[in-house]
């Protein structure tokens, strides 16, 4: 199989990366290991603000639909249940689908595999009924199944609070939010206010000492400053934050670097989002954990970069588009998540310095 641009990962970053090349007449192939496209947005009924043009404040579920629909008029092949499993010696990409492996020859590859949820471990954390906060959201909003009736949440980031609201909306009882830090991690004042109105206890300086139950969670024990609290719950949701998914970059021989502010290990990349492997680009949370606005903008930037490197865009036009998109990234990520934005700039600078050093050797 031949394609101009192969995009690995059909979430918001991959879908948005596809738009510019596809709408300019290139053939784009998007693969995803799931049975449908949209990534986590498929399950996110919360509203998202600070989106890049042409999008406005929107529920994740609707945004997901729009990102897919606007690709439909173009030459885009959507391949669900296709998993990137390896690279042949000549650079051909190997993709598995059911019981076959399909070789794909692509001029450029964009990796937009997003992020995975970090675990928070405690005795009993492997019991059925303990799941990531994202898993609870998938059950409720994609599969329309109650993840449990009586829940407790570990971790207090913004995502946790979004899902707490959604758990309440489907009729689950949320018995508390457990945070090991001295204050909640959520910073959005509007959402803090909304949370206070729910009357759910927030246990700070606290952690789960054990989850117990026969074949499934039935009880949870919390410890807070030597005080012990036990609660009857059937659902424990872990909100441990996100880390970039790296296996695809390892397969593509992309150099990795550790960057705390961007969520841990990430691939190295330059201002065009090109990795140390010149055929491979990165977009979205895989390039460092960011907001949905950052995910969409880095996706678009990557799409423009790929077009420029293949000569589909003239170099002056490409330079202007990229300047525009970097300005947009500054306006969205730079203001909403300044630490992320500055860490990203510093990481790009470091990568350029190391590239220069290699060239002069």
């Amino acid at each position: 199989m031949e394609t101009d641009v192969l995009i690995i990962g059909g979430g918001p970053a991959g879908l948005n990366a596809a738009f510019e090349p596809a709408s300019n007449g290139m053939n784009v192939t998007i693969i995803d290991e799931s049975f449908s496209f949209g990534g986590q947005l498929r399950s996110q009924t919360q509203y998202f603000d600070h989106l890049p043009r042409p999008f406005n404040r929107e529920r994740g579920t609707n945004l997901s639909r729009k990102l897919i629909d606007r690709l439909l008029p173009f030459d885009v092949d959507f391949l669900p249940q296709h998993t990137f499993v390896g690279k042949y010696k000549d650079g051909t990409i190997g993709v598995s689908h059911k019981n076959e492996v399909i070789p794909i020859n692509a001029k450029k590859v964009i990796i937009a595999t997003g992020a995975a949820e970090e675990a928070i471990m405690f005795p009993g954390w492997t019991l059925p009924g303990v799941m990531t906060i994202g898993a609870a959201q998938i059950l409720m909003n994609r599969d329309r199944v109650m993840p449990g009736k009586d829940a407790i949440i570990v971790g207090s980031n913004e995502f946790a609070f979004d899902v707490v609201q959604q758990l309440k909306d489907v009729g689950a009882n949320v018995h508390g939010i457990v945070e090991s830090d001295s204050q909640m991690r959520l910073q959005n004042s509007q959402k803090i206010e909304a949370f206070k109105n729910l009357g759910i206890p927030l246990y700070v300086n606290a952690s789960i000492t054990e989850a117990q139950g026969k074949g499934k969670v039935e009880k949870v024990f919390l410890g807070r400053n030597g005080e012990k609290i036990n609660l009857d719950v059937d659902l424990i949701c872990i909100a441990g934050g996100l880390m970039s998914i790296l296996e695809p970059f390892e397969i593509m021989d992309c150099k990795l670097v550790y960057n705390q502010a961007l969520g841990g290990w990430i691939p190295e990349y330059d201002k065009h989002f090109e990795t140390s492997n010149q055929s491979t680009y990165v977009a979205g949370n895989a390039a460092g954990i960011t907001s949905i606005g950052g995910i969409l903008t880095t996706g678009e930037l990557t799409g423009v970069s790929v077009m420029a490197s293949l000569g589909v865009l003239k170099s002056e036009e490409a330079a202007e588009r990229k300047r525009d998109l970097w300005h947009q990234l500054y306006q969205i990520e730079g203001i909403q998540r300044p630490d992320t934005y500055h860490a990203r700039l510093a990481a790009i600078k470091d990568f350029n310095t190391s590239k220069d050093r290699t060239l002069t050797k």
Partner: protein
Amino acid sequence: MQIINHPVLEDTVNDEITFHLDGKSFKAYKGQTVAAALMANDIKKFGHSRKLQKSRGLYCANGRCCNCFMTIDGLDHVLACMTLVEDNMRISLNNSDPDIRSDRDGN
């Protein structure tokens, strides 16, 4: 438990299907994963671990953690969270190592 009237999303009319877990029949809706179909029927334990004999169930729902392996239509070690449930699907709990050298696998 199924969420019939979702507080935010539009109502959808998906076909009801029947699947079998170790010989017992259950109902679910088309479009749901095997993992979700089981959770909807209050089945949370999908198997147990070999070494420590601990119960295992749905954890990440994204095909990454490999906690939800089950035997589906005769195929061992299939991710229940990434597989859509189908009418008459036969599912077994993942309680032992798959016999990779059996005749069935051509070995």
